[in-house]
């Protein structure tokens, strides 16, 4: 490689948790700074928001006019743009306002909402600019971000995994919490990637990695409904961390209508 990879980490509306995939990486963080030229990463002390980058990780959703403008500039300056985390891929919890009466919510919290720079929606990066790859997860983990960097350094985008959490659950010989305990585990509708943290400690997955490919939210809900779960609570399972990811939004909408 004749020139170091130029990497940027940008933040939009978020909790900062995904940036910790870097800041908690320990030795790997130091290694990353040696391998790559980190051109913007405010939380790590490097500020140059308009720097050109080969690879930019984007944390956060777009929820203000300023952010709308800024993400466009970042896109123009970036070759390979990778939204990371729930905020950037589906809007995360703050996108719950998209399906609510956002104006009222703002009015409840702010005495004069018109003076705040805000949009009525919090949208994922891909709804605003084109993206090259998405890393799902709330939050993404170090393995995901570092695998992206290493794969791109080797010349190819990383393999994208949209399979269900159950697969990894089974590979790890974790005993199914849905079948043995009747928990409302979202594993069968959730994308793999976290390492099966929740069933791994005996609790239900709540879908923080977003929808897997080809999910059947109706059948999953019908099973729980037969076991006594109210439709409204089923709807809330989908209207949670990834309420605005299309498959969850639609499943949530249908269960809400039923309730």
């Amino acid at each position, binding site marked *: 490689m004749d020139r170091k990879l130029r990497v940027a980490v940008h933040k939009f509306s978020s909790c900062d948790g995904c940036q910790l995939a870097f800041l908690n990486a320990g030795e790997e963080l130091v290694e990353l700074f040696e391998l790559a030229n980190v051109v913007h990463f405010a939380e790590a002390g490097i500020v140059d928001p308009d720097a050109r980058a080969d690879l930019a990780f984007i944390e956060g959703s777009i929820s203000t006019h300023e952010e709308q403008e800024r993400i466009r500039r970042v896109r123009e300056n970036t070759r390979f743009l990778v939204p990371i985390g729930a905020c950037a891929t589906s809007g995360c919890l703050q996108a719950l306002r998209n399906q609510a009466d956002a104006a009222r919510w703002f009015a409840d919290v702010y005495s004069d909402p018109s003076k705040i720079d805000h949009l009525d929606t919090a949208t994922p990066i891909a709804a605003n600019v084109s993206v090259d790859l998405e890393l799902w997860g709330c939050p993404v983990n170090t393995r995901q971000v570092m695998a992206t960097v*290493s794969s791109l350094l*080797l010349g*190819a985008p990383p*393999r994208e995994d949209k399979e269900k959490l159950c697969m990894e659950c089974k590979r790890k010989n974790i005993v199914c919490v849905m079948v043995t305990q009747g928990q409302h585990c979202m594993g069968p509708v959730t994308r793999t990637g976290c390492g099966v943290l929740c069933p791994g400690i005996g609790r239900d997955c709540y879908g923080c990695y977003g929808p897997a490919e080809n999910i059947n939210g109706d059948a999953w809900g019908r099973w729980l409904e037969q076991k006594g779960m109210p439709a409204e609570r089923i709807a809330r399972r989908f209207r949670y961390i990834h309420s605005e990811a299309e498959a969850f939004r639609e499943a949530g909408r249908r269960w809400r209508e039923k309730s």
Partner: protein
Amino acid sequence: MQNPYLPREAEIVERIQEAPTIFTLKLRFTDPAAQPGYAYVPGQFNMIYLYGIGEVAISIVSDPDETETLDHTIRAVGRVTRALSRLKPGDRIGVRGPYGRGWPLLEAQGKDVALITGGLGCAPLVSVIRYIVARRERFRRLLIMQGVKRSDDLIWHEQYQRWRQLPDTEVLLAAEVAEPGWTWHEGLVTALFDRAEIDPGQTIVFLCGPEPMMRASIYELGQRGVADEDIWLSMERNMHCGLGHCGHCMIGAPFVCRNGPVFPYPELKALLGKKGF
């Protein structure tokens, strides 16, 4: 026990750009002892490993009697193949194989051979053409039919021109969308059947290309009296191990990697074209 999953290191000796997205890599094993013993027939494939990224199945297109290099013509379509396309001579990759069943070239000797392809540069058949041309006397008539979507897509132009000059050889090309200057047929490859001379009892047919095109061709061939047993086709399915273990490439019972990729039509007849297989 030998690890059948373990690739062997090979060096890229030469890289030829065949078309905007198609390129040929000429490979040589870095272990000089590995090269001579490496025997294969056209139609067999290797698993090509790009360091750190992954493996893909790629047919071997060199002539089996040519032991200097091992050639693979690759279309850059996705993650691995695009990255492979950026390699340069001197770069190293991993190779394991050869796997599967190749074209029945022994059976084809003394017969008319019809090679029908569709889609962008069907490398496995081009290598068969070269194989036959190099041993022209062993085969009877040679019929080459190739269809492409747009005439611009056609690669190996000059070679088709050269081949059509050969004795007892017929070349028919078709493009669904013809650009100005296209002198061949405009339309589907299957329309070429009306112009081709096929002697049903004497002909063995090799098919390669998109499955709908292969099915349409089989229908036309049937109409012209070609027996199912004389039709061979090359299949593609998702492939990981190449050894008949991983289960991705099954079409019903047959594994494409083990029982194919070249199949006599009767083996697939029941499921060919059935959505989901």
